[in-house]
């Protein structure tokens, strides 16, 4: 209730800010028109005299020191750029205030909508949008940022496992789409009645290649939210990424061809050959620059402040050099980012690493926001040429060819896949093919010698807006309704872990090599050769070591503050005190936190040949890598705990009742404080090194079973032993703090704790497994 009031207030504030900014901008624009020339410097006068002219300038008046001058034209360009960026960012703030909006309406829609509004305003005041979206600006400044982000945060392992499929869809799919749409549109052009006869084949193909660039950001967000299975996700992600490269190649090729009056077959062959050169060249350049970057960072331990710079400079260099040679710069920068990422992140300090990630994300978000925003503005302010037939047919063919393409391609590639795509998957793939930024930018920067450029612009904008709005908004309900195969995040039970081991074992038995073989080879090569060269070893400030040191410090502080020092970093493992009688029954409750912890132990310690990663990257968020840190912390904590276990176990609980079970009391912990603190830390992200003070017990007394050790009727004694597992990661999040996960990093897997758990208040009666000791074994119930 309060939050909605807050939301409204926040929205009002946001809107008024935006309006203010808008007015300011318009005003600034107007000022430019009325700008007076800056007064000429008066020291020209001595020069004038030598020409022996009568004083051209009037007697120099005694000019007073000007109190207030304004020289707008000097700052005009940076100022306007900044205002635009700010405006777009305000828009983003605006619709994240009420976060539910972004669930139902993808961000790109909202951005375009805001752009439309701004465009309408500008149109009303007869203002022109700044002519900054030129080809150079887009290709040299905006696109590399977006692509760098894609490459840097690409989930490499799923990608390489599916690389064949991804490339198949990206390359062949885009080709199929372009040629199909191009030819169909050309066929349409033949009909006189539509009035587009003057568009020749090359132009149609060019346009088709632009249209077929898929930008599935919105679809990806939806897929990730719903938790659609990994395969579809990575295929769409990879496709969106790599068909940028293909589209740009095609675009260049077709625009080159469009200039030529006649196309011969040799040109087609040359085109194909060129494609391969372009692709291979891009990858080569990327690798080169990636390795050089990694190597450079090996020596930067003394100049930590400029470490992030290398990442950006080298990637940008790769991009530019590739552009210079007209090979695929997109591929170059992606390969560069992938290559250098791991080595660089090991070489640089923790802060540099965070900085790099943040800046990459920031730049990419800004760039993309701007593009969508401009799309909205330009929609209103350019002159359009609307041709019903062409545009409607474009839309139609875009859908048809994409659907057909996915169908056919899947049929061909399914036999080669272990997990094959069902029809639902294919529908998801086809429907997720939204068009977006690249399409718009490419069409906007078409050379002007194409006489129907306005028609193309209109058609592309129509397609983009249609797909983004309609498909983007509807994809979520459709996918949920269709119940596409999801990742089984919640069923990660122990049994499942075991099953995975069994499968791995069988595969080993069969001498199965598939992707593991190459990965193994690469790993060996990597360890032996590459890492020796590229990674700086034996550094005192290795990031892991530094992290460890910090943890030690935190733990030391925690040790001093908390009773028994157990609150700080030790997640608890409930240990079992055996009864003298049949020790073979499980007899106590496990709290959800413990189970989580167990799952994590299992997943950490088990032999995982093929890890299934579940942490994809949302395009607008930083990736969540707190798991790796958690592993470190947990290891650390378990070692600590084992050291302290003997000295600090509470003896009292054991002696009282011999024949029952109780929880191992982690001294100093209790259920209430644990949950309460966890809630608090959830809500307010409390700095947990201060946590011990927040519990209202005086830190040093241990005997006061710090919390009501609840005596459950006559038999069970319980006490909460739970350290919220959220504790360990927090001491480090305020240092590392890079990741934008607002909730505790260990979100419990969606295990609904079965009825007998966690409800401490039930006094254990609901627990089926607590034995009634006074009644011996009343017979077992078998089902």
């Amino acid at each position, binding site marked *: 209730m309060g939050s909605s009031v807050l939301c409204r207030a926040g929205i009002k504030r946001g809107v008024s800010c935006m309006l203010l900014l808008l007015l300011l901008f318009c005003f600034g624009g107007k000022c430019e028109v009325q700008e007076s020339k800056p007064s000429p410097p008066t020291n020209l006068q001595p020069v004038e005299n030598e020409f022996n002219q009568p004083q051209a300038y009037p007697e120099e008046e005694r000019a007073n020191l000007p109190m207030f001058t304004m020289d707008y034209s000097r700052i005009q360009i940076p100022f306007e750029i900044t205002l635009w960026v700010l405006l777009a960012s305000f828009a983003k703030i605006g619709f994240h205030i009420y976060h539910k909006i972004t669930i139902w309406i993808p961000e790109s829609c909202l951005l375009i909508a805001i752009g439309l509004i701004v465009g309408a305003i500008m149109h009303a005041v007869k203002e022109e949008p700044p002519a900054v979206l030129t080809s150079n600006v887009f290709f040299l400044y905006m696109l590399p940022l977006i692509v760098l982000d894609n490459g840097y945060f690409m989930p490499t392992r799923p990608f390489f496992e599916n690389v064949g499929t991804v490339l198949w869809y990206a390359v062949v799919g885009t080709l199929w789409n372009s040629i199909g749409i191009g030819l169909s549109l050309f066929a349409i052009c033949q009909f006189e009645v539509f009035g587009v006869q003057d568009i020749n084949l090359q132009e149609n193909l060019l346009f088709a290649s632009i249209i077929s660039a898929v930008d599935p950001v919105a679809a990806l967000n939806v897929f990730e939210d719903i938790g659609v299975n990994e395969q579809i996700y990575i295929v769409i992600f990879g496709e969106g990424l790599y068909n940028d490269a293909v589209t740009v190649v095609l675009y260049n090729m077709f625009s080159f061809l469009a200039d030529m009056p006649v196309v011969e077959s040799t040109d087609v062959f040359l085109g194909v050959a060129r494609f391969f050169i372009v692709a291979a060249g891009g990858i080569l350049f990327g690798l080169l620059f990636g390795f050089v970057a990694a190597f450079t960072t090996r020596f930067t331990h003394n100049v930590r402040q400029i470490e992030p710079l290398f990442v950006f400079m080298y990637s940008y260099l790769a991009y530019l050099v590739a552009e210079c040679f007209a090979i695929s710069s997109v591929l170059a920068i992606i390969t560069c980012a992938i290559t250098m990422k791991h080595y660089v992140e090991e070489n640089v300090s923790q802060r540099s690493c965070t900085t790099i990630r943040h800046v990459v994300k920031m730049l990419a978000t800004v760039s993309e926001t701007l593009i969508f925003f401009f799309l909205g503005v330009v929609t209103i302010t350019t002159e359009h040429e609307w041709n019903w037939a062409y545009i409607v047919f474009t839309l139609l063919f875009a859908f048809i060819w994409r659907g057909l393409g996915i169908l056919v391609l899947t049929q061909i590639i399914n036999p080669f896949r272990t997990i094959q795509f069902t029809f639902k998957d294919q529908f998801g793939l086809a429907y997720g093919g939204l068009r977006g930024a690249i399409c718009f930018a490419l069409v906007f920067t078409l050379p002007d010698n194409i006489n129907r450029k306005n028609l193309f612009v209109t058609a592309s904008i129509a397609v983009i807006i249609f797909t983004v709005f309609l498909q983007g908004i509807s994809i979520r309900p459709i996918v949920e309704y269709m119940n596409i195969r999801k990742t089984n995040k919640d069923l990660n039970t122990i049994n499942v872990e075991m099953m995975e081991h069994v499968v791995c074992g069988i595969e080993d038995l069969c001498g199965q090599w598939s992707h593991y073989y190459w990965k193994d080879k690469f790993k060996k090569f990597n360890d032996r050769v590459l890492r020796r060269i590229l990674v700086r070893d034996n550094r005192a400030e290795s990031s892991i070591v530094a992290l460890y040191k910090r943890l030690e410090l935190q733990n030391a502080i925690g040790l001093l503050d908390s009773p028994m020092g157990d609150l700080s970093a030790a997640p608890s493992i409930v240990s079992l005190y055996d009864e003298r009688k049949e020790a073979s029954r499980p007899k106590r409750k496990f709290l959800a936190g413990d189970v989580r912890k*167990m799952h994590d132990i299992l997943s950490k310690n088990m032999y995982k040949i093929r890890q299934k990663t579940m942490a994809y990257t949302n395009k607008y968020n930083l990736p969540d890598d707190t798991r790796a840190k958690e592993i470190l912390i947990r290891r650390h904590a378990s070692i600590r705990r084992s050291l302290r276990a003997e000295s600090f176990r509470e003896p009292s609980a054991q002696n009282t009742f011999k024949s029952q079970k109780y929880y191992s009391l982690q001294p100093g912990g209790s259920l209430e404080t644990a949950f309460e603190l966890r809630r608090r830390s959830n809500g307010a992200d409390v700095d947990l090194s201060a946590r011990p003070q927040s519990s209202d017990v005086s830190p040093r007394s241990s005997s006061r079973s710090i919390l009501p050790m609840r005596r459950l009727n006559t038999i069970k004694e319980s006490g909460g032993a739970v350290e919220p597992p959220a504790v360990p990661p927090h001491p480090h999040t305020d240092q590392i703090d890079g990741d934008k996960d607002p909730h505790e990093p260990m979100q419990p897997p969606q295990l609904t704790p079965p009825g007998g758990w966690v409800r401490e208040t039930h006094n254990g009666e609901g627990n089926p497994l607590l034995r009634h000791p006074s009644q011996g074994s009343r017979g077992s119930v078998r*089902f």
Partner: protein
Amino acid sequence: MGALQSSPGQPEYVDLKEKTGFSFSQIRVLHKRFKLLSHNGETLKRDHFNSIPDLACNPIRSQIIEAFFDRRNFRQNGEGPVDEIHFEEFLMVMSHFKAPSPRMIEERESVRREKLRFIFNMHDTDNDGTITLEEYRHVIDELLSLSEALEKDTAKSIADAAMLEVASTSMGHMEPDEFYEGITFEHFLKLLKGFEIELKMNVHFSMMDTPTFCK
């Protein structure tokens, strides 16, 4: 296999194909593998399995090996362990890992049961049809045997947690004095109901390359 050991001809394969559902090429590949593992002998024994280097790092190696020598997996409704297996039994066990063909939705359920039965048999070493806590603990111990920094109690508590999980999933609310004997196969099924094991527990047989065994 009889007298036709060296190169079983097509008729043998046809028989096997019908029983196990593998294709001819898969059977051929697996046969090559079998011969390699058994050093061209006719039967496989446990030692042969132990000599596979890759398998050595798998913590539940012994369970996997046992599974091969367990009559329950031979689909002949037998029980108890054997000491050596022939190619046919090898294939039978391997057939549990075959991917279901995507068209046959009806078969999915039975394929699922089969695979789950396999896993169940791996847990249930004493053949009594239930997985008791001891057996489960044993398995978890094995699973975690490769990790160093764990306490002894951890495996036990994990096993307890798992049992609890099954208990609550399958039996819901129990009286305080009731007592959970062990996981039966039905409970096991229920526990893993949402998990599409038929899609995950697959080995892509046609892409094997037997020479890499000698790494």
